[in-house]
């Protein structure tokens, strides 16, 4: 089985990134790491290789510094790595990256393309579906469990949905799968393989080698700003309340007080009343598909 893993090097966002908003430049002392989800994708690829045999090829698009990320993943056990670079990538968004990756991956004709489902720094998760489209492959995104049967050229995956649900998706191979960080725990590379990975040559491809013009980027950056979300719509305070009461509400974080009467009585009595309310409001009996009152 030939598996291609897409790797991105990202800014470690654990210490807050302080941007100079006048020049829109990133500070020079940033710490770069392998995107965590891509590390999981590499791990998954290596496990598949161990089980079914084959080859794991890493690929990454970005400035020369990203070869460090490729070497970190090589050390985990991948067979070889390809690096793509052109200065125009710097301005581009996920669509540009996906087009370039597709151009480099297509000649390899892999059975499976693995990506992390989103990056730590940008976090758009835009590349995997766009890459699948450019390669003409079916996609399964946000995968938490993956089973591959190379003999039948089929895969089965659990895909993350909202509220902790999972969708079970089956697909033929070749396919593209983007993995969630919960899919596995990454191995720790052995010292020997770290040493080997430091010296292993990495092929670098530029636009010329790929045989295409730098693709156009449809979106443009217009502004970088300190984070200031638009305030969420909240209900205005009741103007009939006294100022003191309104200040108290402000201090409590905008919690609206509700006029409720306390229920008192024997536990049995209260339990009967509450059980009735829970039934009326459709909280009971529980329904996995639609808990809650009006479905909104």
């Amino acid at each position, binding site marked *: 089985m030939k598996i291609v893993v897409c790797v991105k090097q990202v800014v470690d966002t654990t210490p807050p990134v302080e941007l100079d908003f006048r020049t829109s430049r990133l500070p020079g002392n940033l710490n770069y790491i392998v995107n965590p989800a891509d590390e999981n994708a590499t791990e998954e690829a290596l496990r598949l290789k161990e089980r079914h045999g084959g080859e794991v090829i890493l690929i990454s698009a970005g400035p020369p510094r990203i070869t460090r990320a490729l070497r970190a993943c090589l050390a985990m056990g991948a067979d070889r790595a390809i690096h793509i670079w052109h200065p125009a990538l710097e301005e581009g968004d996920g669509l540009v990256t996906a087009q370039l990756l597709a151009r480099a991956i297509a000649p390899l004709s892999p059975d499976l393309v693995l990506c992390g489902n989103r990056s730590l*720094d940008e*976090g758009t998760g835009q590349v995997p579906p766009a890459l699948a489209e450019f390669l003409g492959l079916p996609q399964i995104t946000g995968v938490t469990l993956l089973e591959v049967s190379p003999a039948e050229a089929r895969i089965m995956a659990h895909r993350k949905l909202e509220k902790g649900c999972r969708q*079970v998706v089956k697909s033929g191979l070749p396919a593209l799968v983007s993995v969630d960080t919960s899919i596995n725990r990454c191995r720790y590379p052995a010292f020997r393989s770290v040493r080997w990975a430091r010296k292993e040559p990495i092929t670098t491809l530029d636009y010329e080698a790929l045989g295409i013009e730098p693709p156009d980027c449809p979106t443009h950056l217009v502004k970088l700003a300190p984070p200031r979300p638009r305030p969420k719509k909240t209900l205005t305070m009741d103007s009939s309340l006294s100022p003191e009461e309104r200040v108290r509400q402000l201090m409590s974080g905008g919690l609206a007080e509700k006029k409720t009467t306390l229920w008192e009585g024997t536990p049995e009595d209260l339990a009967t009343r509450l059980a009735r309310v829970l039934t009326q*409001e459709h909280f009971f009996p529980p329904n*996995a598909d639609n808990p809650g009152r009006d479905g909104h």
Partner: protein
Amino acid sequence: MGSRDLWVLAEHSGGAWQEVTLELLGEAKRLAPLVRGKVIALLLGKEVSAVAADLAEYGADTVYVVEHPVLETYITEAYTSILHGLITREKPEVLLLGATSLGRDLASRLAARLKSGLVAECVALGVNSQGLLEMTRAAYGGSVYATRICPEARPQIVTVCPGVIGKEKPDKRRRAEVIELKVDIDPDSFQTQIAGVIPADPKTIDISEADVLVACGRGLGSKEKLTLIQELADALQAAVGGSRVAIDNGWLPAERQIGLTGKTVSAKLIIACGISGASQFMAGIKDCQFVIPVNTDRAAPIFKIADVGILADMHKFLPSLISQLGRRT
């Protein structure tokens, strides 16, 4: 030259709207006059036309309904080809999607097929002087907000994070034109198949995603009493959370803490047992819809935000409630 309409992809599953769909409609209604277009909601599914009118109340001027048995669950190939067909025909100005498991999967694939611009996971939208959408998203772990525009390619595609805009009150008088569209899809040509959905296990679900919660606090008294909370949670298929006291005493693991130092929860129902309601805890549950505190202290602040307040000792009341619920099944 296409229309100047704003399209919103509506998500409806399990008999309920995704909250973000309703938020997007409100936002589209606000942006529509600035873009000089109409708000058009797209509803794809199996037998969904009955709920199409809801979309008008939240801001849609027109609703396009596409019904097909294969659309019962989301499947990338079907949605991409249908939307691609509709968009190349109608040429909308803007396409808004929620940054949900569906929106994330679909938006980028669609943008790639249309060769159009996508700005994903936005937190704010605006319109500049040329009528272009200004799409703002967080980058570098939230320490920078980047605003992008899409000057030429159409439609301008955006996914918006759920919960950041907030939904408006529905206007019951609003009506929309509902147009049913016929599409030709051949499910046999799909390379992927959906084999089903595994429901969330309330015992392992993240409390911030839980729809029903049973929470305990100091009033619990000891870890042994946790079985009481768990029994009630099992009866309601609820997840278990706790106040800071419950976590500090080692009764519950830290990932189950509700409040400022824990997690903000947005359950549709929360039963808070033996929690008086310190402001830190209250901040954590302010998005919950139906709050039922059980407490012996008449003056406990949590009763102020209660929908039903039970003045009782949880150790006496909960066994009764559990047996009552047991009898009702």
